[in-house]
């Protein structure tokens, strides 16, 4: 870490030296703010390059010395600069560097591998895809296989039937063609049927917009809702940073509402009201409420009663309810059950005219965890037809989402049924993954709760634990001396001592003065005991070093 800060500072000093005198003082301010290490962090998909003075001098020119170029840091969209994404930061850079170094320099470290607990990316940690889904995708990718007799020896019979059924729904059986901008109609039919089976209320395929993962759907809605910083979106804190990043990119205001850690990350209507009023008093028009259920990073599953209150609140205040329901299959405790907001609203007797509701679903999560496919959809209900046309128009600018993601989204909403050839193996794979995730969540939660000064709510759902760490004053002082957020300081020490990569709570935002980290429950089960041991050992020695 120290090496990083020194390197960065040195680099900045070099750049400043090379830099011609700047007439605008804000440039200097920007440089100063860069000297403060970023509080946000990390995953494997994004790790900013660590600039060193040597590498920057080899480069075609760092930004400050090339200010005559049309596009530099000084002239890019300030909303881009402002947006923060916790799926970034130096911890992963450090982890990747450690991983490279481990290959040649094994003896230098007290661990022999890096364990990435920073991102919900199950298949990168060895989770196997559901066989049936992949069989169907392979057949749809290379449809000539369907004419080969040998295919019957290599594929399950229902995967072949399903592939035919899907191809028949695609005009010209052309899986290489752009589809309807909302997604292939037949696949949307299957999804609508799946929603109906889940909720017991009708779903309309014309309400479904298929997207490359759930994130583009969230961006699309932000684009529609936000015109300026006067438009606010209520977001949970702690939150998945997609929301803060998207709001910043679209130039709106994030209106925070705090989840109550003491009551298992409960969502209090009184808190929503308070924050809404507070925003109004600042001249902000709150347009929507984002709810993540099951919660990310907090793992709580909302009770139906709580959901009803939320629906009523949105209806009364005229807010669009943005329901992030991507973890709907990930529920690990018998006393909680996932209920979609659409089902809750409909069961209250609220229809199209009563509430505007957008529900997001993804193929990246659940038991399938197909992150690399970029598939998802949003179900859009309770909007007038002229608004719907605008959503369609925005979707059409990007033509369509990728077809294999679309096919997979339809498969997860209409998996094999009892009696199908693949049914038993499908159920065994699914149950195996979900019950193992539940075991891992429980084991990690118990281990965390045994640590001095650590309390951890159970992961009722989703894929994460978000323990609260009471850091000793000495540790906080040491973090300050190292110019880093206390939780980031803890996480870096953890990485260097154990090879375990987690994300500091500051990346998700938290009640000021409290410290957390997010740890996925995704490492394979046989690795969990070692993780628990290393984590426990590290924490003990950390506390011994810094105990007040």
């Amino acid at each position: 870490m120290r090496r990083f800060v020194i390197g960065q500072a040195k680099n900045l000093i070099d750049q400043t030296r090379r830099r011609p005198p700047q007439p605008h003082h804000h440039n200097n301010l920007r440089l100063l703010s860069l000297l403060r290490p970023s509080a946000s962090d990390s995953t494997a998909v994004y790790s900013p390059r660590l600039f060193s003075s040597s590498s920057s001098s080899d480069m075609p020119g760092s930004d400050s010395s090339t200010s005559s170029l049309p596009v530099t840091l000084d002239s890019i969209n300030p909303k881009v600069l402002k947006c923060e994404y916790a799926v970034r930061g130096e911890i992963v850079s450090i982890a990747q560097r450690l991983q490279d170094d481990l290959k040649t320099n094994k003896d230098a470290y007290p661990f022999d591998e890096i364990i990435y607990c920073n991102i919900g990316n199950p298949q990168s940690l060895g989770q196997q895809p559901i066989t049936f889904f992949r069989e169907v995708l392979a057949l749809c990718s290379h449809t000539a296989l369907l004419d080969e007799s040998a295919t019957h020896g290599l594929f399950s019979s229902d995967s072949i039937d399903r592939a035919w059924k899907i191809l028949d729904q695609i005009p010209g059986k052309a899986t290489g063609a752009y589809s309807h901008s909302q997604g292939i109609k037949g696949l949307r039919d299957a999804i609508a049927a799946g929603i109906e089976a889940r909720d017991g209320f009708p779903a309309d395929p014309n309400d479904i917009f298929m997207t490359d993962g759930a994130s583009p759907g969230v961006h699309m809605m932000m684009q529609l809702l936000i015109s300026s910083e006067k438009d606010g979106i209520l977001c949970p804190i702690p939150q998945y940073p997609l929301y803060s990043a998207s709001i910043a990119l679209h130039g709106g205001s994030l209106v925070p509402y705090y989840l109550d850690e003491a009551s298992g990350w409960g969502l209090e209507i009184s808190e929503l009201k308070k924050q809404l009023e507070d925003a109004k008093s600042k001249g902000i028009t709150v347009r929507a409420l984002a709810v993540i259920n099951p919660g990310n990073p907090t793992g709580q599953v909302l009770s139906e009663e709580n959901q009803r209150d939320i629906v009523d609140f949105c209806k009364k205040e005229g807010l669009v309810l943005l329901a992030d329901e991507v973890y709907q299959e990930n529920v690990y405790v018998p006393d909680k059950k996932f209920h979609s907001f659409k089902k809750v609203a409909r069961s209250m007797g609220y229809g199209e005219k009563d509430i505007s509701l957008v529900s997001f679903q993804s193929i990246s999560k659940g038991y399938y965890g197909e992150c690399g496919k970029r598939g998802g959809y949003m179900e859009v209900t309770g909007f007038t037809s002229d608004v719907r046309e605008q959503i369609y128009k925005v979707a059409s600018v990007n033509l369509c989402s990728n077809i294999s993601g679309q096919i997979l989204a339809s498969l997860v909403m209409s998996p094999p049924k009892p009696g199908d050839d693949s049914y038993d193996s499908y159920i065994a794979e699914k149950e195996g993954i979900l019950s193992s995730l539940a075991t891992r969540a429980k084991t990690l939660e118990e281990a965390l709760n045994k640590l001095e000064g650590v309390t951890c709510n159970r992961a009722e759902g989703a894929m994460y634990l978000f323990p609260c760490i009471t850091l000793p004053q000495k540790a906080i002082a040491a973090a300050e001396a190292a110019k880093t957020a206390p939780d980031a300081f803890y996480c870096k020490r953890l990485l260097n001592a154990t090879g375990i990569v987690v994300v500091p709570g500051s990346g998700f935002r938290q009640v000021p003065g409290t410290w957390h980290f997010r740890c996925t429950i995704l490492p394979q089960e046989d690795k969990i005991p070692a993780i628990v041991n290393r984590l426990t050992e590290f924490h003990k020695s950390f506390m011994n070093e810094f105990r007040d």
Partner: protein
Amino acid sequence: MSLKALDYETLNENVKNCQYAVRGELYLRASELQKEGKKIIFTNVGNPHALGQKPLTFPRQVVALCQAPFLLDNPNVGMIFPADAIARAKHYLSLTSGGLGAYSDSRGLPGVRKEVAEFIQRRDGYPSDPELIFLTDGASKGVMQILNCIIRDQKDGILVPVPQYPLYSATISLLGGTLVPYYLEETDNWGLDVNNLRQSVAQARSQGITVRAMVIINPGNPTGQCLSEANLREILKFCCDERLVLLGDEVYQQNIYQDERPFISSKKVLMDMGEPLSKEVQLISFHTVSKGYWGECGQRGGYFEMTNIPPRTVEEIYKVASIALSPNVSAQIFMGLMVSPPKPGDISYDQFVRESKGILESLRRRARIMTDGFNSCKNVVCNFTEGAMYSFPQIKLPPKAIQAAKQAGKVPDVFYCLKLLEATGISTVPGSGFGQKEGVFHLRTTILPAEEEMPEIMESFKKFNDEFMSQYGDNFGYSRM
């Protein structure tokens, strides 16, 4: 009912202002007619597989194996897959961390980006850095990411050719920037005149617009021209003088239908020009798996390469990319295959060459049939499609037709295209969706319908046009002028 959460009035104005004609009124009407049972020829989108083009076999085999990696352990896999496809599938899976189901690096798999860099180096003869190549879900996503980084507010202008592919106008609207048009010269085979560019920039500046970037589409969409090397040099010099980032939309680089003007990348021309320009002009080039002889539109795969973009700006672009986590991994593999296709000696080589040549040669013939067909029609003139996938004929609408359109509340070319659709089932895009000079009307059609259907399509177009012109055109006719 209570307060409406989001109604048309409260929508973001930028969204309302955005227009995207490729899937606009004509397309929606065509879809309706199709539902009613009418046979529709969709020539509105460059979507080859939808019109019957077969996918190339080899890449589909490789991706199918990556989709179902357990097949690789099956001793019988060789019965239905050739050995080189099996080897390539293993290669690409080894470049991933967790197969097709895991997020990759937000910029795309490092191994595929390396293959892209090697392709660019082979194509241009100059080195390319994989760190400056980002893979995207189709080229459109890349264009959106880059424009998002450039456009700050409505004072920022982007030079865009007119006629243009409406992705640019739509994205600039959505991001709240200003489109600064420069007109292509139809009588000069849609040539790009640098004097026009200067005028456009001067005019924009006089209105307080900061022109930030210039878009070129080469080969042109919808106009089909290939830019000459001399023209590209002028453009790069212009961008240098005016401090503009050049956005090179080069997605049709494989689609060339004449031999006089081959495709030359902007990057190669820039490097050929040497210093200081080669170090000063900022260039971002876009490519895709949707076009060429691949036509894999449904995969949503693309890349952009950045030249002379400073490292810390690259970091910001990386951050924007990271918010979408990663581009879809199977399309990344398609991209890898596109830039490193089978080589001579590989088992699949002959078939691959046969398939790809077959597609390109047929497209070349179709480009000719279409241009000639349009030029044989009354009041229609059409430049030859040198490249890309479109024909963009000018329709000289008689005053009576323009009058009738006005009465129907339609833009004249929309009126014409709707009539064409109702009469023949041919679904085109009116020129007004791409922008055109005042009082001049066009339509865009792809050259993608199957070759054997081409004569019939052109015949039915001619018949419609003759009838249209005689209905609206008494005492009028350019053919007599």
